[in-house]
């Protein structure tokens, strides 16, 4: 449409009117300002935690459990151990179901169940984490009591849609000719999928798993009534377990300075791990 007007605008360039120039500059400035406002919280949060938390990150922080209320010198070993164990258990669920879902969506696109599973996976991605906590509570905690396993189940459910989405995308990026080459060699479809397509997409799938881990590692809401928290180190998934985000939540809402100090150090540790994982994941997907 606009090209029709081009031939008629053959006048000598008159330069911008001051009003338009002014508007252009002002809007550019506002956009820059808005971007600064958007980025500022991240930098403020990181440096606040660095300033407040780095002092508490000593050997005790990694080797001790929180001191009894009112005492000082504790650490967050219980939370670190609990987080690691629950994330490992959650990734078993998340990776197994997530990658299988990705394979199903990308390799069996004509299956009658495909649209349903794609839609439900998208829907699961939007369900608030705390609601998943309520579901895991009803499923496990009501019968067996608070447990690390219940927490891991809630986290695993949250991981599934993220892994499904990324693995479906990267599997679809593997060229069809690669699959056809495998089939032409007489390989059955399952071998082509497992030995040719999956390895070709492995980098992207690992990226997706790392992003999913980074996302659920910071979730405290689904753990509130499932893993519940534990003042001591517990490695038995049948018992209540602590986690970094849980300790941060308890510490930040606690009245004791010592707990608040641990919460800030825990937040620094958590946020650093999450940032490193996200950045590594992005690097990894770039190189692919």
């Amino acid at each position: 449409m606009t090209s029709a007007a081009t031939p008629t605008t053959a006048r000598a360039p008159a330069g911008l009117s001051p009003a338009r120039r002014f508007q252009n500059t002002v809007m550019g400035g506002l956009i820059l300002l808005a971007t600064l406002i958007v980025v500022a919280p991240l930098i403020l949060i990181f440096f606040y935690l660095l300033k407040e938390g780095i002092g508490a990150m000593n050997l005790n922080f990694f080797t001790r459990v929180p001191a009894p209320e009112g005492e000082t010198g504790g650490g967050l070993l219980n939370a670190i151990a609990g987080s690691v164990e629950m994330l490992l258990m959650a990734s078993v669920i998340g990776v197994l179901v997530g990658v299988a879902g990705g394979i199903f969506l990308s390799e069996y696109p004509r299956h009658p169940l495909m649209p349903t599973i794609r839609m439900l996976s998208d829907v699961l991605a939007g369900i608030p984490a705390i609601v998943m906590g309520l579901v895991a509570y009803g499923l496990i905690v009501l019968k067996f009591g608070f447990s690390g396993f219940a927490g891991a189940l809630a986290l695993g459910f949250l991981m599934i849609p993220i892994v499904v989405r990324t693995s479906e995308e990267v599997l679809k990026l593997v060229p069809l000719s690669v699959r056809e080459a495998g089939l032409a060699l007489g390989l059955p479809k399952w071998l082509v999928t497992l030995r040719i397509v999956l390895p070709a997409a492995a980098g992207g799938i690992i990226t997706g798993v790392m992003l999913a881990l980074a996302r659920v590692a910071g979730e405290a809401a689904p753990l509130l009534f499932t893993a519940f928290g534990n003042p001591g180190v517990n490695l038995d998934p049948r018992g209540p377990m602590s986690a970094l985000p849980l300790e941060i939540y308890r510490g930040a809402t606690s009245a004791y300075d010592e707990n608040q100090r641990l919460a800030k150090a825990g937040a620094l540790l958590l946020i650093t791990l999450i940032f490193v994982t996200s950045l590594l994941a992005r690097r990894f997907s770039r190189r692919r």
Partner: protein
Amino acid sequence: MSEPARRDPTPARLSSSSDRVFEILILMLASIIVLVFLTSIYQLGKDSWPALTHFGLAFFTQRTWNPVNNTFGASSMIAGTLITSLVALLISVPLAVASALFVAEYAPKWLANPVGYLIELLAAVPSVVYGLWALFVIAPVLGRWQITFFNPEFPDRLALYTKCAGLWADNKTTLQCFFVPSSGAGRGLALAIIILTVMILPYTASVARDVIRLVPADQREAMYALGATKWEVISRAILPYARAGILGGVILALGRALGETLAVAMVIGDSQDVLRSIWGNASTMASVIANQFGDARELLHRSSVVTLGLTLFFLSVLVNYVARLIIARLTPRGIQ
């Protein structure tokens, strides 16, 4: 796909049975997604049944939420969820779109990538960390300003507060009083809105950035060729082209905001009273679940809290569905 081609030759017969096994195995694992969805509905439905049968639809319109009398109505926290989410959305959308424009249109490449990184990291910060920051950093700043309303050194502010406190005591408020702080703690509805705004910014921003990048270069060049300034290109050629995709991003952000739990629960003050000041304590559905489920001993109380979860479940399903519909229908392919 290549199914018919493999059926005929004899060697393929061997593999076709193992292919069936593999397909069934993958289907079974993938069906766990369906199972999770159905289990969630069943579990939430079962646990909220006592409250739903006891109160009926009045649960959603009743305002009283009183564990002592076993009377539960969710309208005040439904309102809290909607108010916090929509106001946060209103503030965050212009900021998010502007930052997307900066990354996609203004910044040179060496700057655009790091800024894009930073905005994505904003989405990776856990909810509890936002809550901690809001409690320890923003709340004291707000509190310092709020305290001036109770300080005799500022007589006009004190007079305003005294006038409003009288109104509040009768459960009334005026437009002016609605913006007068009711306590000096810094916590409350306003802080929840502030932190929610920050938290949902990256969702709109990253979708908007992707969509803006997909606007064809022709579109921009045609406008520049007419002698338009950069802002005119953005406002008349880029934003109208990208608006459907941006709208999808906005609705995704709304979905996030509705379910955001701990950061809000930590700062909003968990009160189910009528809202008389934007600085006052309030609650959202998610914050009530986080703050009360653990302490809910009575069956009806517990069941009412789960009903909030069920409501939230369906609300987020609906919002996400609409968002994906918009993104799928109205934008060029490639932004998912």
